[in-house]
C-alpha cells in the first residue's frame, strides 16, 4: 500500500518534469499582467536600466538554445552594441582588475548608488590564489598566456566582457558594457587581468 503510494508519487514527480520540458503555454497578456504586478513601477534612478529587451525575450523563449536563425539575429544585434575605447587601447591596470573581479556589490535594490563590482569570481576561476570561485563559467586561468597575449585576442575579450552575447548568443554571462553595469575603465582593467603577463591569471 505504502509502496504503491511512493511509486505513484515518484511517477508524478517525473511526469511533472516532462511537462516542464515541453513549455506550457501562457497567454502573453496574462504574463504581462503578472510581471507588471510584481514590479509595478520603476524605482527612482533606474529609468535608464533595460528591464526586458528583445534579446532577453528571445533567449527566455528558447530556453537559451535559440535556433539558427534567431542565434544569428541575436548575434548581429549584440555585435552592433559593442563600443571599444576611443584610443583603441583595451588594456588597463590588472591590479585594479583583480579588485573589480572580486567585488560583488552594487546594483541591487538594497544597495545605495555606487560603483558596481564585476564579480567575475562568482562564476570563474581566474588565478590559483583565490579559492572562492564559482563554476557557472569555465576556468580562465592562463587565459591570456594561452592566447599568446595577442592584441587582437585582448580586443576580442574586451568585446566579450562588453557584451557576452555578441560572441555567444544567450550566454549566461551578463552583458557588462551593454547594460552600463561596468565603466569603460573597469572593463579595461579586467581585460588586463586576463591579458597582462604579470597578472596572477597568467601565472
Amino acid at each position, binding site marked *: 500500500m505504502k509502496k504503491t503510494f511512493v511509486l505513484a508519487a515518484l511517477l508524478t514527480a517525473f511526469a511533472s518534469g516532462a511537462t516542464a520540458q515541453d513549455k506550457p503555454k501562457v497567454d502573453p497578456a496574462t504574463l504581462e499582467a503578472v510581471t507588471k504586478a510584481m514590479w509595478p513601477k520603476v524605482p527612482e534612478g533606474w529609468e535608464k536600466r533595460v528591464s526586458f529587451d528583445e534579446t532577453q525575450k528571445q533567449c*527566455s523563449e528558447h530556453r537559451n538554445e535559440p535556433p539558427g536563425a534567431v542565434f544569428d539575429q541575436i548575434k548581429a544585434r549584440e555585435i552592433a552594441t559593442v563600443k571599444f575605447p576611443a584610443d583603441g587601447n583595451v588594456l588597463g591596470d590588472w591590479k585594479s582588475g583583480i579588485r573589480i573581479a572580486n567585488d560583488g556589490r552594487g546594483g541591487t535594490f538594497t544597495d545605495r548608488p555606487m560603483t558596481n563590482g564585476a564579480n567575475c569570481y562568482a562564476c570563474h576561476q581566474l588565478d590559483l590564489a583565490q579559492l572562492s570561485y564559482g563554476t557557472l563559467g569555465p576556468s580562465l586561468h592562463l587565459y591570456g598566456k594561452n592566447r599568446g597575449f595577442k592584441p587582437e585576442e585582448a580586443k576580442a575579450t574586451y568585446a566579450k566582457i562588453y557584451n557576452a552575447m555578441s560572441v555567444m548568443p544567450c550566454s549566461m554571462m551578463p552583458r557588462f558594457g551593454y547594460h552600463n553595469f561596468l565603466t569603460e575603465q573597469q572593463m579595461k582593467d579586467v581585460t588586463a587581468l586576463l591579458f597582462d603577463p604579470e597578472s596572477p591569471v597568467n601565472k
Partner: protein
Amino acid sequence: MLKRGKRAWFSWALAASLAGGALAQAPQPIDTEKELEKYRAMINDPMSNPGYLNVDRGEVLWSTKRGAKNVSLETCDLGQGPGKLEGAFAKLPRFFEDVGKVMDLEQRLFWCMQKIQELDTADIVRRRFGGPGRFSDMEDLVAFIANKSNGMKFEVPLAHPKEKEAFAIGEVLFHRRSDFMDFSCATCHAEDGRRIRLQGLPNLIKPGKAVQETMGSWPTYRVSQSQTRTMQHRLWDCYRQMRTPEPIYLSDGLTALTLFLVKQAEGGEIQVPSIKR
C-alpha cells in the same frame, strides 16, 4: 556574504552536517549518515533550533483575538477546512474557490487577516521580514503552520485550471531573463553541481532529491541572518541578486514560482523549520 552574527557558532557545525544538501564542497564522506542523523535530531530539537521560537510565537498568534473584529485566525481555511492545519502546507499553493485564485500560505493568511480579523495589514507588510528587535507575524505563523505538515510529502495535483495556469506562469518566470544582469532563475538553478563562489546551487528544474530537499526545508532558520525565513523571502533575496527591482510581497508571480517549485519537488518530505547557512 556570510554575516558572522552572534549565531555564527551554528554555521560550522552545520556546514559539516549539511553534506547531502546545500554545501557544494562536502567534507570527507566520513559517516555522512551519522552526521545527517545528528543534523536531523538538531533541527527537530526545539532546544537547539531557534526556528522553534517562531513556531511557538506563531501558535500564540494563530489563536489570539485581534483586529477590528477581535477574533482569532482559527476559522481561517487553508484548504483543508476551517482551522485545519495538519497537512495544509503540503498542498499549497492551491486554488481557493472563495477568492477565485491560487494562493500560497502567506497570501492566504493575509487574506484571512483582512477578511476574518480586519487586522491592520499595513503593519503586517511592514514587518513581513523580521530583523533585530522586530518580529514578523508572517514568519511566525508560517513556521507554526508549515511545521504541522512535518513528515508529510508535497502534493500538488494541479487539478484546477487556475493551478495549471499558475504552474505554467511559474515555469515561464523561472526562465525569464531580465534586467541589469540578464539573469533568470535558470542561470543559477538549472544544472547539477554548480556553485557561485563557494555556495552550492541546487538544480531546481530537475525533479528529484535536490529540489525536494530544498523545498522541503523552507521555512528555515537562517544562521547568517539570525531569522526564520519563508519562501517569499528566499525569492525576494534571489531577485535582489538578479538586480531586478524589488518584487512586491505576496504578488501572484511569486506564488506562481512557488507552485512551480513545489510541483518540481512533489513527493519531497517536509521537515521544517530547518536550519541553514
